[in-house]
Structure formats: structure tokens, C-alpha cells
């Protein structure tokens, strides 16, 4: 007996003709829709998004086939894997059936037919399992990051009905042809047995088969035609975006805006200011909500969601106004409460790091900030900090002479070393708070104890420009950076130590784009290497239960999670605790991205939320490696009135 079957059995000519016409129509719609999408992307002429078309094979295998970033969330990843395997597999099955039906090559027979039939049934089961998991995530769990719209539910139901009608067609055929030997199509066999139990007449079975076939065809074509108009378009846009993106090892700085003195405006004003890559990213979003999970702006204010912002920008790209030609993107966004995210973003990088398809909401926020700040539409408190940075050289409204006085008083001895190994970049936070001065003194004590030759810039050191860059004041940042680069290049060494991850990131990555290439080391890495080389003694600390907070600009931006923990683990008689959200998932303290100088948008402050999280592990001491985080935790401890019982220290203060 040769195992095979007639393809398009019981399908009259008018139905097959309808299938061809329908398919051609759907293909036409797809081509037109994707052409329009491509046209919109190409109309975006901005050139400041980072492309990376290297490592295409690695990206394809790891992030498209193996879906590594999707699988970071186990349940969601499994759901997506099951659905994608089911849909892709069944699509290929259909293509092979088409080849069998319309070419002279007949290969679906014999053992291959058995394997083919079994595979088709299993793929259907896999797809149903994926759909079931998706429905359970949406309706069976309290998943706050998912917001269900009509398209989310309807696509899932559509897929489910397509699979069920497919099984129905198979079962009807098997019953009508008494093909009960095809137990290698297990689901079809079960359906056939169920239908047979009702004892229908053959004519009824034939009608049922034809009806289900038509329904199956219509639903399948409907699903395909919906692809460019719903989030299903990510089937094409997400892989393309992944192939053009950088690998997600650590977060890059936003691109530098060049020749700003020759431009009438900078940043993102209207649609054409997005780049091709930026527009493509917006169309790759599936609203999975991973960006929302630990967004500090969303946690402290329910209106502010990176997911909603990305989708609003997607709609803004397509918005056509007959009355206003080059409408401003902000005019469109201002109709929605989410526009405030532009100023409440802490640039912690969580959304960018965790997006499974490498969308970068941060670059859009930076683009909007560049534009708004350049035209002066910046919140008042941030404007004061920027004016202070312009006129006084620091964002804290501290007199410049104060820095020199502090240096004279606090630097151990006059550092006029002729062949220094390092420059110690103290940063501007010492002008704001006595606590920050104590941290700087501790760092210098560590350097002295390890007998490291270093110099400091005394009154010559200004702000690194990080607040300006994060608040979108690109011109001011470049002015400060170029002046600092000139000063630093005059020094006999290009190795810089700093205790501030924001300064470290700016000096290392942002200055490099302005031809200021320096070897910048955060003090946590230096301390760990000194401890390893036995040049620094392990201290003893009074506190026994220590929890470490990962600063965003050290963790996600610089992939430095282990060194601070290794230092703490080396301290005897202490217990190192971990917060619920740590390492790559660490919640921001809420001070980055210029938030130190911006009013919070109402709701619970993020630093209080993070402090409560730290308190849940019942620590005696919270250790961090960033002056911003230190200030935030101190504020929170005072607010909670536990400053006496829960202390906050920098890593260097344990040694110095």
C-alpha cells in the first residue's frame, strides 16, 4: 500500500480558482503595504542612528533562529518559540503541498508522506500550545506589562481557528474516504473518529469538508493580509532590525551630532529627522512590554511607558496632516500624557538592553531632547542646571572657586608628580555635597595606600558634560568635552580613574567620538585589581549584612557586575545579599538622565522604591559605586528615617 493522498481532494475548480485569485490579491496588498512602509522609512533622512551590519550570520543564528533575547523571559520566550515554530512549519507544509499540487514533482508519498502527515499534526499541536500559553499570559496571570488590544486577542483567536479548521478538514477527509489507517495523523484520526461517531452521510461529509476548506482559506488569507497592518509585521521588520543593530553586549552612547553650527535645528523635529534605522525600529515593536518592566519613569508614574511612546512615535510617522506640512513630532505627542516621558526618562538603559528585537527607545528620547533643549523648551529646573553649567562650569550652582578651595584642603599632598600613572578625575559632585567629598577623599586614600602615582586637575577640572548630554544640550556638551579633551591631552598619561560611572562612560565612550581617546577605569575595577595583586588590604567592616546596588552606568552600560561583588565577597565575616532586581535587571536609582535636576512627575519616587527593595533583604549597609546612587539612597534613608540603622556607603569608603 502506498501512503499518499490526492492534494486538493474534493475541492472544486471554483474554489481552487478563488484560492489563486485570493492569494494574488493578498500578495498585491502585501507588496503595496510594505512598499509604503519602506517609502516612509526612506523618507526619514536623519543620519544619527547607529547601524551595524557586521556579524550578520551570528545575529541571524543567535537572535533570529535561536531567539536568544526573546528567551531571556522564559515563559514569554517559550510561547513565542512555540508559535513561531508552529506558524513557520505549517507555512512550509503548505508551500510543499502547493508544489506537490502544481508541479510534476510528486514527493509527498510513501514514508515521506507518513513523516509529513505526522509533522503537520505535531506542528498544529505546537501552535495550539503556544496560543494557549499566550492566552494564559494575557488573561490567566496578573501580567501588568501586557496591555491587550483588539488585535492581540483577534490574532490569537484567528490562528487557533485556522489550526482547528485544518484538523477539521483532515478529519472530514479521513472519515469520508475511510482512511482510518492514517493514525500517523493522530489529531486528524481523532477528529475522524469523532465525526464517524455521529454517522453522517457521505454527502454531508463532503459538504463539511468543502465548507471547512473555504473557511480555512479565507481565515488564512485574512491573517496574511493583516500582517502589514498589525503587529504581525514584526515577522519581517524585527529580523531586519536585528540584522542592522549592534550586538547587545553593553549599551553604546547616543550618536554624536556633527556640524551643529551649520544646522537650523538639531534632533528630531519632524518625521524626516528620524533615520531609516529609527523608523524601522518603530515598526519592529510588538508591544511585548519588556521595556516597561523596570522603567523608573513608569514605576513612579503610570502614564509614562516606553512601549506606549514607541507606538505613539510609530503612529506619528504615519500621521498625515493636510493643514500642517512638516508638523512637529512633539505637537503630535503632546496630545498624549506619555509625551512627558521625554523628560522623565532616566536613561537607565533597561528598555534598550531588554528589548528582544533591539529597539532603542533611548535614541528617540535623546533626539527629542536635542531638539527641545536647542530651542529652549526645557523644564525650568533643568534650565537652571544647564545655565549653571554654562556660566559656572558645574550644574550645582556652586562657585568655581569652591572647587579649588576644596582641593587645596582635601588632596593629601600637592600632586605634582612628573610621571603619573593615572589621572584621578574627581568629578563635579564634590561641589554639591559633603558626602561626595568624603567619597573622593576615600578614593585618594586608596590610591595613596596602594602607592599609585596619580595627578588631579585641581581647579582646572570642570564637569565632564554628562548632565548636558543627557538633558539634550548637545552644543554645551561638545563645548565642554572639547575643552576637557584639550586639557587631558596635555597631561603625561591617558589613563583616567574616576569614581563616577557617569564620568567614566562619558570620558571613555562619548569623548572617543570627539577624538579624545582615554583609558578610563572605574574605581571598582581598579580596587579589585589592587586587591588581587595584594597591593590593597581587605578591610574589616562593622556591618555584617551588605547589599550591593548596581549603578546603571556601571552595570548595563559597562557590563561591570562582578568586580564590586568580588570585592565585597572578599571582606571577611559579612553576608553579601542580593536585591530582587539586580545585575542586568537592576532598578535605576532615579537620578540618571538629568533626573537629578528635574522634578519628578508625581507618584512614589523611584529612589524610595529602590530603597524599600534594598530594605527587604534587611541589610546593615547598602553599598554602591556611583555618587548619584549614593545621594539617592541617602535621601531615601532620611525620608524613611532609618539613616541610623541602614547606612549607605561607596565601595571606596570601605577601604579609605
Amino acid at each position, binding site marked *: 500500500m502506498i501512503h499518499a493522498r490526492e492534494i486538493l481532494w474534493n475541492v472544486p475548480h471554483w474554489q481552487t480558482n478563488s484560492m489563486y485569485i485570493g492569494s494574488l490579491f493578498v500578495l498585491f496588498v502585501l507588496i503595496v503595504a510594505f512598499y509604503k512602509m519602506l517609502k516612509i522609512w526612506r523618507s526619514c533622512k536623519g543620519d544619527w542612528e547607529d547601524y551595524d551590519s557586521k556579524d550578520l550570520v551570528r545575529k541571524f543564528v543567535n537572535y533570529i533562529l535561536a531567539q536568544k533575547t526573546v528567551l531571556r523571559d522564559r515563559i514569554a520566550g517559550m510561547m513565542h518559540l512555540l508559535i513561531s515554530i508552529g506558524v513557520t512549519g505549517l507555512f512550509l507544509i503548505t508551500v510543499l503541498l502547493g508544489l506537490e499540487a502544481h508541479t510534476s514533482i510528486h514527493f509527498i508519498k510513501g514514508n515521506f508522506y507518513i513523516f509529513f502527515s505526522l509533522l503537520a499534526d505535531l506542528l498544529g499541536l505546537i501552535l495550539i500550545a503556544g496560543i494557549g500559553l499566550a492566552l494564559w499570559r494575557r488573561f490567566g496571570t496578573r501580567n501588568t506589562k501586557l496591555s491587550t488590544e483588539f488585535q492581540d486577542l483577534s490574532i490569537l483567536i484567528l490562528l487557533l481557528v485556522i489550526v482547528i479548521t485544518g484538523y477539521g478538514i483532515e478529519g472530514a477527509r479521513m472519515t469520508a474516504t475511510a482512511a482510518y489507517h492514517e493514525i500517523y495523523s493522530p489529531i486528524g484520526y481523532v477528529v475522524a473518529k469523532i465525526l464517524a461517531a455521529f454517522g453522517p452521510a457521505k454527502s454531508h461529509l463532503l459538504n463539511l469538508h468543502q465548507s471547512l476548506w473555504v473557511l480555512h482559506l479565507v481565515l488564512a488569507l485574512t491573517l496574511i493580509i493583516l500582517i502589514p497592518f498589525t503587529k504581525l509585521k514584526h515577522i519581517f521588520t524585527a529580523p531586519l532590525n536585528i540584522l542592522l543593530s549592534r550586538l547587545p553586549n553593553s549599551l553604546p552612547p547616543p550618536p554624536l551630532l556633527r556640524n551643529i*553650527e551649520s*544646522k537650523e535645528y*538639531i534632533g528630531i523635529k519632524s518625521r524626516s529627522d528620524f533615520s531609516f534605522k529609527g523608523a524601522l525600529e518603530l515598526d519592529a515593536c510588538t508591544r511585548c512590554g519588556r521595556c516597561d518592566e523596570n522603567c523608573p519613569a513608569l514605576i513612579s508614574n503610570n502614564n509614562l511607558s516606553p512601549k506606549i511612546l514607541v507606538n505613539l512615535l510609530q503612529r506619528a510617522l504615519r500621521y498625515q496632516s493636510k493643514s500642517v506640512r512638516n508638523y512637529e513630532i512633539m505637537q503630535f505627542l503632546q496630545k498624549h500624557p506619555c509625551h512627558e516621558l521625554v523628560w522623565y526618562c532616566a536613561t537607565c538603559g533597561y528598555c534598550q538592553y531588554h528589548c528582544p528585537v533591539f529597539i532603542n527607545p533611548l535614541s528617540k528620547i535623546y533626539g527629542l531632547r536635542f531638539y527641545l533643549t536647542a530651542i529652549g523648551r526645557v523644564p525650568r529646573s533643568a*534650565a537652571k542646571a544647564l545655565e549653571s553649567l554654562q*556660566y559656572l*562650569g558645574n550644574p550645582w550652582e556652586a562657585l568655581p572657586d569652591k572647587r579649588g578651595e576644596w582641593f587645596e584642603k582635601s588632596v593629601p599632598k600637592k600632586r605634582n608628580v612628573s610621571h603619573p600613572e593615572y589621572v584621578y578625575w574627581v568629578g563635579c559632585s564634590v561641589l554639591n555635597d559633603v558626602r561626595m567629598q568624603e567619597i573622593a577623599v576615600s578614593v585618594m586614600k586608596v590610591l595613596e595606600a596602594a602607592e599609585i602615582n596619580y595627578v588631579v586637575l585641581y581647579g582646572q577640572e570642570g564637569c565632564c558634560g554628562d548632565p548636558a548630554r543627557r538633558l539634550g*544640550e548637545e*552644543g554645551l556638551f561638545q563645548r565642554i568635552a572639547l575643552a576637557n579633551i584639550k586639557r587631558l591631552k596635555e597631561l603625561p598619561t591617558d589613563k583616567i580613574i574616576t569614581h563616577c560611572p557617569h564620568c567614566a562612560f562619558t570620558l571613555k565612550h562619548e569623548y572617543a567620538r570627539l577624538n579624545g581617546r582615554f583609558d578610563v577605569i572605574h574605581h571598582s575595577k581598579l580596587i579589585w585589581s589592587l586587591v588581587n595583586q595584594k597591593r590593597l588590604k581587605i578591610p574589616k567592616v562593622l556591618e555584617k549584612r551588605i547589599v550591593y546596588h548596581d549603578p546603571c552606568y556601571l552595570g548595563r552600560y559597562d557590563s561591570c557586575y562582578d568586580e564590586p561583588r568580588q570585592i565585597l565577597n572578599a571582606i571577611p565575616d559579612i553576608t553579601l545579599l542580593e536585591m530582587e532586581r539586580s545585575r542586568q535587571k537592576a532598578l535605576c536609582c532615579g537620578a540618571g538622565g538629568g533626573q537629578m535636576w528635574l522634578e519628578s512627575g508625581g507618584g512614589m519616587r523611584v529612589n524610595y522604591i529602590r530603597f524599600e527593595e534594598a530594605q527587604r533583604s534587611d541589610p546593615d549597609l547598602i553599598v554602591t559605586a556611583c555618587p548619584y546612587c549614593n545621594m539617592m539612597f541617602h535621601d531615601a534613608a532620611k525620608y524613611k528615617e532609618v539613616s541610623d540603622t541602614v547606612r549607605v556607603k561607596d565601595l571606596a569608603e570601605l577601604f579609605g
Partner: protein
Amino acid sequence: MMANDVIRILVYVNEAVSHEYSFEIDIRNKKVLPCHPEMVKKIDIASRCALEEAFLVKERGGHVEISAITVGLPEAEWILRTCLGLGADKAIHLATDQLEYCDDYTIATLLSEYVNRKKADLILCGDRTENYGYSQIGPILAELLGYPFLSGIIRLEMGKEGRITVQRKVTRGNRLRLQAPLPAVVSVNRMINLPRYISVHTQIKPLKEAIAKIDFPYKNARAMELISVGPFKPRAKKSVVPSGENRLDFLMSGGKSSKEGRKLLEGNLGEACDQIIQLLKEENIL
């Protein structure tokens, strides 16, 4: 001025020296130099408020042409460049090379000569400067032009038929509403608005309109000459401790001093001003 005509707003802007930076005194060359070379020039805050108010009037609708004007040395052009970057339609520099230190009367006279030639419907300026206290440019300019003068304004609205309505702060949250016909001179108080942030890009971006430089060789300039700079000479101050009897007299008189040589002026404001002028003439000051 017809209802649909363009309203020409002229805004006087001037530079402010930042007091946050310490200075070095070069006595020999009579120079005052900032210690920190990276000191950034800034526009006087009241001027910024005046300019911002002009922008707000434009944004509220109506046909408005905003011109920024400044008086002084060539180095002053950076202010006008910034004003054009912020959105002013025109910028005028009344260049006066020979005058390094101008008093308010000279500036007001130069401005009045410009306005007489080019016309302006509304002239805005700040009511005080960061460096020199209350500014007299507004009232002197208004007097020279014969325009109404509205001082210390905290709210401005363009009305119909060529009139403006303004508000001035009086005590305890009360406001005085005044109306005047255009053309008029208005000095704004800093409370009128929060001026927008001036970014570096605003200061350096390409200009849509060139700065109109007009050489004003003002022959009768009442220029001040800087004769010396130097440290403040400390003078020993005598401390006067009043006796109990003097203090009681002082209190009983309602706070009027009983010292000789003091004169209490009586009458309304105009009469008091006349008496002051008379006194200054008697003392050979005027």
C-alpha cells in the same frame, strides 16, 4: 496704526557681567579682568524677560515683527546673534565705538534717534539690570519720544484698536491694571515670565537675518570716562550710640530724625521732585 497692520516691537537688550566669577584688577591699565577665561557672557535677565514677552505676544497670535536692539561696542553683536537665534525677526546694533561706558541717558538718546527714524509701536526693556540696579533707559526714552511709559509690568496683553493692557504689582497680591495707546514704552519686571533657556546651539546656529549695524557717532555723548580702578579704601567709621533721650525723641516723633541739615519734603510727587531739583541747584550739583 491700523488693526491689521504689523505691530513692530522693539526690544532693548544688554549684556550682564556674571558676579559669580572673581575678578582681577589691573590698576595700571585701568582694566577689570575676569579670573576665569571661560566666563561666558550672558544677556541681562530683565532683557531676556522683555524679549520673551515679545515672543509670547507673537505666539498668542497677531502680526508681530520683533526687533532686538543693543547699543555699544562691536563685541556686543553676540547678544543680537543670540536674539536672532531665539527667534527675533531683526537685530540692530547701534555701534558706538568711542563710548566704552555709556550712561542710561546716552543709551536712551541713541535709541530715541533710531526710533524716530525707523518707528516702533511697542518698545520693551527691563526695569532693572543685574549689574547696576534700576534702569532709567525706559522712562528717559519715553520722555524723549513723547510716548506713554509703563513701568515694572508683570503682565502684558495686546488689545484691539492699538491699545495695550498691562498689570503692575502692588502690595499683597493686588494688581493695578492700566491701559495705554500705542506707541508706548514698557519696562518689564522679571516676574512677567520665565524666559526660555538659551542653548549653545541658539548662540551659534546660522542666522536667517543679518544683524543691521548702524554707526551712531553721537557727538554730544555724555560719556563717562573711567579714571581709575582700585581696591576699595577702607574708612574708619564712627559709631554713634544715641542717648536714651535722643532715642525717645526719635520714637515720639514717629521716626523722624531730629538732626540738623535734614529737610522733609512735603506735597505730591511732582512738587517733591521740583523741591529736589531746587535743592540740587542750590548745592551746585545741577
